[in-house]
């Protein structure tokens, strides 16, 4: 099925097709790697919306990437509970191991490192999401292993 067909199938499951814009953007992002102008246009056409509308919606949400990102996403929660148990040290360990600053992507385009607001694993901090799969608890000393596993992928 083409992306448009997939989107239209999802849209049929809602009383109003516009509700499908979030799942549609997610699908398009999975296909294009990020929400490029082309991706936004495709979603717009599939749902009879304007590309501008899709840009407005997508840019509101943290999980949608309006710029290119790495093949892998490493997200470290630095909200209260995780911060209290050393999230900053975990984050810095990732920065050091990956050779990037938080918010940036490694030069080979492999990994983007981000800080997250509360990921929902507070009692098991520090929480790290690797491509949206949670690892918890993570200590700074766990980071090299995590990174090498990621690189092997």
């Amino acid at each position, binding site marked *: 099925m083409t992306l448009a067909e997939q989107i239209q199938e999802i849209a049929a*499951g*809602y*009383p*109003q097709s*516009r*509700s*499908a*814009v*979030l*799942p549609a*953007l*997610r699908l398009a992002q999975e296909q294009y790697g990020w929400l490029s102008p082309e991706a936004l246009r495709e979603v717009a056409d599939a749902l009879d919306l304007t590309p501008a509308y899709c840009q*407005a*919606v997508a840019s*509101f*949400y*943290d*999980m*949608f990437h309006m710029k290119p990102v790495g093949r892998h996403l490493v997200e470290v929660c*630095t*909200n*209260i*509970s995780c*911060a*209290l*148990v*050393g*999230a*900053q040290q975990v*984050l810095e360990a990732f920065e050091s191991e990956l050779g990037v*600053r*938080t*918010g*940036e992507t490694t030069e080979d385009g492999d990994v983007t490192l*981000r*800080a*997250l*607001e*509360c*990921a*929902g*694993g*507070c*009692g*098991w*901090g520090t929480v790290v*999401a690797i491509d*949206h*799969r*949670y690892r918890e608890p993570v200590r700074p000393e766990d980071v090299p292993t995590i990174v090498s596993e990621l690189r092997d992928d």
Partner: protein
Amino acid sequence: MTELALVLAGADERDLTRLSEYRAVGGYRALEKARGMDPEAVIEELLTSNLRGRGGAFFPMGRKASFIPKPDDVPKPRYVVVNADESEPGTFKDRELMFRVPHRLIEGCLITAHAIRSQNVFIYIRGEYLAEFEVVRAALDEARDEGLFAGVTVVLHRGAGAYICGEESALLESLEGKRGQPRSRPPYPAVSGLYAAPTLINNVETVATVPKVIELGGAEYAKIGAPPNSTGTRLFSLSGNVVRGGNYELELGTSLNDLIFEIGGGIPNGRKLKAVIPGGSSVPVLTADEVDTPLEHDAMTERGSMLGSGAVIVIDDRCCMVQLGLRVAQFYMHESCGKCTPCREGTRWMVQLLHKIEDGRAEHEELDLLLSVCDRILGKCLCPLGDAAAMPIASYVSKFRDEFRAHIDEGSCPFGGESSLEGVLAPVDQHTHAPVAEVPA
């Protein structure tokens, strides 16, 4: 007052993600019972139980359900929406609930649908909860294949990363495919909710409690916990500087002190308790002297705080309260939807002021200015997020005033770089590694 498994009943002994296992502990019998009752009678049980919203608003579910008009009065579809957008800092109970007892949630959805004569249920699940989404989806497929839906459709809809979408009207906007900005109320969702139709929207845990309420009966449920205002059990998420962080289902009225020290194992590494955030980052902080409080509505209100989302964050004496205030303010600045002026501008201003105080560059007047900004946000915003930012910050200042003063008098953070929150990078500051709120000169 103790641990009591109702919502999580049976989950320790069996894998309740499987339909057959769930049935083995009595699952879906409450649904059968409810479907044999008049919808009004189901609502009556909810009213009697005084089951109140477990997301943070603590509004009686039965009363909410009674606001839904009858089909004859309003010939529109009625919708059940489950708020599974758990994002309140410190809270991770809905995550565990969905991961371990998805069928209990589904059963609760179907009973609720029957109670308000709805044929459509939407579960709005936080986008980041990928594993939980997969578990719930599989459970829905199982239940659907078993013919349990009886004509009701259940749509599992993933969010995409926005705390504000946990606010009920913003959730509905997001579900309708828009930017998740809250609506002005009235009209309330019961009158005009999803697609402008009557909608009952509740937190995951609230809905997952419904089967037990029906099974026990409202009156029995109401005896548990701390009646009349705080009946039943709820999940408390314990985290921070505590030995055994985790989710604990406790009777309402359990002492906060017991949760932290008995159940939670107290403070590790020989540190002392300094402060507790008792209900998620949106509620005023309690000092160490104030933890001898029952975790129930009236006692918490008397303490000047709230039950909130049930998230108890334990803070030890390594933590600088100014840095905590800053980190919390950064959270709200990042998550503000931007629709209303006081929240959009006020949260950023608070971050700027707290940076200045933490850096030791502030004057005493700026502490008063910070409190004035909090006061000017309070009660004036379109939705509760503004208050959720202003109230806690104001409470840190008022309860730890000396610490804030010391930053100003000493011209630096008294922790000298040793605070547990030292240098924590907030998402608003990434990409620049410099505070976004301040433009370099």
